[in-house]
Structure formats: C-alpha cells, structure tokens
C-alpha cells in the first residue's frame, strides 16, 4: 500500500514538473478548458438554447465529436493486438502510448456525452440502484457499460504495468487476461456506438448494417494516424530515442502504423462507396440526406447546402491520404507521411463526425429542412473538451515516459535491472 501511494505521489510530481515549453503547453490547454467551462456555465444556467441544436437537428457538435472519439479510443487495439497476439516487438514499447491515448479519448467521449445532456443533474438516473437503466433495451445503457469498462481496462493495464516497472518487478500473469479482454472490448465500444445510430428505423441515413463495420474501419485509420503524429512529437520533445534513453520509438513501428492506416482507409472508402451506391442506385427516400450532404437539398427554390463544402473537403483529404499512404515512397517520407496522417484524421473527423450525425436529421422524418451550424459558445465547449482530453493525455504520457525510460524508479529498486515483460 505504501508503495502504491508512493507511486501515485511520484506520478503526480513527475506529471507536474517539466520544461518551460511543457508548462506553456499545459497552460494553453488549461486556458481553453476554462473558456469552455465559462460557456458551459451559461449552458447550465440557460439550457441548450445557447447551442444551435434544435428539435429538427437534435444532436450536434457534441455528439458528432463523441462519435468520432469513440473510434480514436477503440483504435488503441490496433497497437495492442499486434503487440500481444502476434508478439510484434516494434509495438511493445508503444502499446502504452496507445492505451493512454484511449484514456484521453475516453475522457473526451464521456465529457461530450455529459455536456450534451439537458439535465446533467439527473445523470444518476442512468445507473443501477440510484436510477432505472433501461437495460438491455436501450443501446445507450450498453454504451455506458462498454465505455466505462473500456476506461477501466485502459487505466488498469498501463497503470499496473507502470507501477510494476516503477518497482522493477515482473508483471504478474493475470494482467495479460485483462489485456486480452481489452481487444474485443475495444471493438465493442465502437460497435455499440454504431448501433446507437444503426438501430433507428426513423433515420434512413443511419439505419444501415454497414454502420458498425464502417465505424471500425474509419477508427482504425484515424487512430493510427493520430498515433503516428504523437509518437513523432514524443520523439522530438522528450528523452525518447535520445542516446542513453531506454525507450525507443522506431521508424519501423511508425511505418507499420502507416500501413494499418492505409489498409483501414481503403476499407473505409470501400464501405463508404458501398453505402453511397446502395442508396443512390435505389434512389428511394433514403437518398435525401446523402443528397444534402454532397449536393445540398432544394426546397421551394432555396438550396440548403451548409455541409456540402465540408464533405467534399473530407472526401478529398481522405483520397489524398490514401494515395500518399499507398506509395512506399511517400509513406516512408516523413513530410508526406505527416500530411497523409493529418488529412486522414481531419477527413474522418468530418466524415463520421458532423458528416454522419447532421444529415441523419435532414430532412426531418416529416420532411422539414432545417440547417444546423454550431454557435460560438458551442464551439468553445467543444474545444474545451478536446483540450481536457489532451491535457489528461499529456499528464499521463509524462509519467509513462519517465518510468518506461527508467528515469524514475522507486528508491528501494534503484539497483535492480528492469525485468522481462516491460
């Protein structure tokens, strides 16, 4: 127990000490969180009226970002799976970055759900004992279970491994059971999130069996793309990869991630194409939301097309990213690789964020066209949630790097070698 407390205290100390640049980064994230918190205060006081979400388009920026980030959280599995099931050595060092990315993403996911609630004061109605969860009927209750379970797994696994590394002890075997469970669990979080949409017969745009596969494919593109960029930042600004540091992120690991992103992106584009074909060729009433998304909808001489430029941007970015990742020359050149990763990440953020949530509501089930565009306060809250996630991720990474690079160790274990399994 004393050791555990020592581990936690040291972790907090380590996470809060750093260079001037580190403090500047933390402060800017904190500032964004504060601005968002102020906006959220008004939302609490006056209601969701401060957003542009209305009866016609009843979910907006919050749920769009929620959906996208569940994918980022799930994508950690793309590192864990090769590392543990295939014993892929290049990924052994970076699994912890992936798992902690999942934690950061889940912080955002859960916060986005909470800020979207009209009555956050009653959220305990969702839980057993204090509330009446509509389980197993409501997919949202499933989502509460799988998301919190996944958060638990991704706190437990890296937390335990870091603790053991801090003590220079070999991790016990039981942790591998949790690691194995975390693999299908990652798939489940994004599947359930897709089912939230896919199960609604009222919304033809979402009511399609390809929803969950498409969600997973796009997640496994955006997640690794983000990982590639973060790992490079880590290599550049921390001790990782410096002479004498025990923690290494190899180019090969990055290129393997790029390969995963490539294949997932191609599958994602294929799924998207299948969906577009089915809807467009049959040309039933299901077509309207898709038409809205790509070309705008015309009603009584007015064309409604606010999302159109974003969607074309997204598709263009995705195709460019796919091409850059496809050719070994551009995949193995860091400039073009980074462009590809940013394009893939942003493209998918648009496509399965706003590009998926908003058109589901347009037109309404009884034919009204009403366009949504987030308000300034809504954007501030959205940014704040992102900043909060990155803040948590940064602090966790700081600790992980310090321990994994053997910079920080428990006083009693100073002379010990790092044992196998780390």
């Amino acid at each position, binding site marked *: 127990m004393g050791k555990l407390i020592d581990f936690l205290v040291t972790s907090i100390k380590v996470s809060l000490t750093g260079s001037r640049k580190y403090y500047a980064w933390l402060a800017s994230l904190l500032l964004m969180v504060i601005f968002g918190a102020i906006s959220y205060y008004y939302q609490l006081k006056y209601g969701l009226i401060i957003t542009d979400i209305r*009866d016609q388009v009843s979910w907006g920026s919050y749920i769009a970002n929620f959906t996208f980030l569940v994918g980022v959280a799930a994508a950690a599995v793309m590192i864990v799976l090769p590392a543990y099931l295939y014993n892929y050595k290049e990924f052994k060092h970076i699994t912890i970055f992936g798992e902690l990315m999942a934690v950061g993403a889940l912080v955002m996911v859960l916060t986005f759900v909470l800020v979207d609630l009209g009555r*956050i004061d009653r959220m305990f109605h969702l839980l057993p004992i204090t509330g009446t969860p509509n389980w197993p009927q409501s997919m949202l209750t499933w989502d509460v279970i799988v998301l919190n379970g996944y958060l638990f797994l991704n706190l437990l696994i890296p937390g335990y491994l870091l603790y053991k590394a801090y003590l220079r002890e070999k991790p016990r075997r039981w942790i591998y059971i949790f690691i194995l469970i975390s693999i299908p669990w990652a798939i489940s979080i994004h599947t359930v999130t897709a089912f939230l949409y896919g199960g609604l017969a009222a919304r033809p745009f979402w009511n399609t069996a390809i929803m969950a596969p498409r969600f997973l494919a796009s997640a496994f593109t955006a997640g690794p793309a983000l990982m590639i960029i973060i790992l490079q930042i880590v290599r550049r600004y921390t001790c990782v990869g410096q002479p004498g540091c025990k923690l290494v992120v190899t180019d090969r690991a990055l290129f393997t991630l790029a390969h995963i992103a490539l294949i997932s992106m191609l599958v994602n584009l294929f799924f998207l194409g299948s969906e577009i074909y089915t809807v467009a060729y049959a040309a039933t009433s299901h077509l309207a939301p898709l038409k809205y998304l790509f070309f705008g909808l015309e009603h009584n001489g007015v064309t409604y097309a606010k999302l159109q430029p974003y969607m074309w941007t997204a598709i263009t970015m995705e195709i460019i990213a796919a091409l850059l990742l496809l050719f070994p020359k551009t995949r193995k050149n860091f400039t073009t690789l980074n462009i590809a990763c940013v394009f893939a990440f942003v493209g998918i953020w648009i496509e399965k964020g706003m590009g998926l949530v908003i058109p589901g509501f347009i037109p309404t089930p*009884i*034919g009204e066209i009403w366009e949504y565009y987030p308000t300034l306060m809504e954007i501030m809250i959205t940014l704040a949630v992102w900043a909060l996630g990155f803040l948590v991720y940064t602090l966790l990474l700081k600790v992980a790097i310090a321990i994994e690079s053997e910079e920080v160790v428990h006083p009693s274990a100073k002379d010990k070698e790092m044992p196998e399994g780390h």
Partner: protein
Amino acid sequence: MVDRSRREFLKKTATGAAAAVIPFANVRIPVIDVTVEELLQSHYKEMSEEEKQRVIERLKREYKEKYGIDATIKTTPPKEGVVWGYALNIQKCIGCRRCVYACVRENNQSRANPKEPWRGEIQWIRVLEFEKYKIHPGGKAKDFRTKFGEVLAGINLEESEHYYYPEQVPEKDKFYMPIQCQQCERPPCVKVCPTKATWKEPDGIIVVDYNWCIGCRFCIAACPYWARRFNWSDPYIPPEEINPRMHYLGNRIRMRGVVEKCTFCIQRTREGRYPACVEICPVGARKFGNLLDPESDVRKVLEKKRVFRLKEELGTHPKFFYFID
C-alpha cells in the same frame, strides 16, 4: 430484486413521513436551479401515493410562487378496458391550425416571447401542406427528364410545406395533414430511452416523467413522426395563459432540458373529456375514442372508412389513423 430493495430504500428516504429526513430538502442548488428534494425525487412509477401527493403539493406551491396561480395537478390512472385511438379526416382538414394553438394553450407549452426570442415556442402538432397534384412537363428534376412529364401527387413528406401563411385557408389546390404523436403500440422512443423516463401507459398513451428525463434526446432521434419536443430553455408562459387543470404526466409546466410530447390530453381524456384538438376542430376532421368500445367515434371510423397509418412499414403500429371520406 435490486429493484425491490431500491424501492424500499427510496421509500424510506423519500416518503411523506420521512420528508423532514432529507437534509437541506428546500435548499435550492444554484445554476441548475432545483431544490434538493426535487433532485432526489424518485421515478413516477415507483412513487407511493403519499409521495405523489407530496410532490404535487410542492409543485402547486412553486407554481403559486412563480406564476401566482392555483393549479390542480391530478394523477388520474388509466381506466380498465380503455385503449385510446384517434382518427383524422384529411379530406376535411382545412389547414387552419386551430388545433395547433388549442393544444399549446391546453398543454402549457412554451410560447414565443418577443422580449426573449431565444426562448422557443413549442408546438406538438405540425400541420403539413401539400399540393393536390403538380405536373411538370418534361419532369421536375433535370436528371429524371422524361418525355411524358412528372406527376407529383399525394403524401410525399419531402414535398410538404411546413411554413405556409396564405390570407385564407384552405387554398384551392392544396390539402393538409396534421401530424402529432401517433401513440405507437411499439414505440421506438420508449425502446431507446436509457432511463425508462418515457413509457406506454395501459391505455396506450406514451407519457414522459419530466422529472426523470435526463435530456439525452435519443427519443427525438428515434421517433419516425417527429412528435417529440425538447425544452431548449426554460419555458415561457404568461401567467394569465396558464391552464391550471393539470395532470402530472401531461400538461403540468415543464422545465428546461427535458422532452415533452402529445399525450392525447391525458388531463382531459382520463376525466371523460375530448382532447383539445378534437374539440376545437371547426370542420370535425378529428375523431377520438376508445378502440375497445365498438360504439366509439374512432371505432365507427375504422368500421366505415378506409384508413391508413403513417409509415406503417416501420413496424410502429400507430393508434392514429388517417382517412378520407
């Protein structure tokens, strides 16, 4: 089992006798603006009779303070052997929207407020205007140009007009179709609710416990009839316009952040009166009654007319029927 122990627990903490036991019961939490007592209130279906009465007393007190009105809030239960049904004659409907406004007045929906325009107006009934028919020689859409022209007629929701303001209704070449909650037998909105805050009563009406709803709006996304509304802000109702005859599951005044919907005027129909929309309709297009009673208006319509239901292919089994003469 869990449910039972939970109920016991809640009973102990929240029954009338134990009212004084809740610490700080009357303390108002700032910003979210609810009292501790209201926050800890249990689900309507789990309340004992005393608990219901106590909540109602509290609501009456609050309405008195805030609006200066003396309200009666009933909890009249459903009657045995009654399942409510509704029938609407779209041939008779003239699109005057008197039903829309009668509903707003009866059910204490939020009104438009010129001084605070951000506080939205809520209407439970939406009247759609359709062109009787339209023939576009050569086709309407360029990509479907045909030699014979394109005919648009009948109920095509995507062609409907929701915001029509002519001098006089009905317009010669138009017809109208009001849409409100269809009180589905298999309601998708109830299925998706994560907290069981909305449910189907034994008389077939879908109700919401406004104090249990967490405002996730999943039900709004799930409803194929766009029949649910959200309180994006605190509702605005001028005190003199409040209907003081209320039902707990119906037209009592809502709060910001919760979903509301048509209840077939539960406060009226459970007392043997017609819904407000039925009463106000100047052309008698709206029929209402007990589907289990062969003599009811709605059964007579089913007997004599050919009816259809909206989006029946979605498997929702509405208890709201449309018909023509």
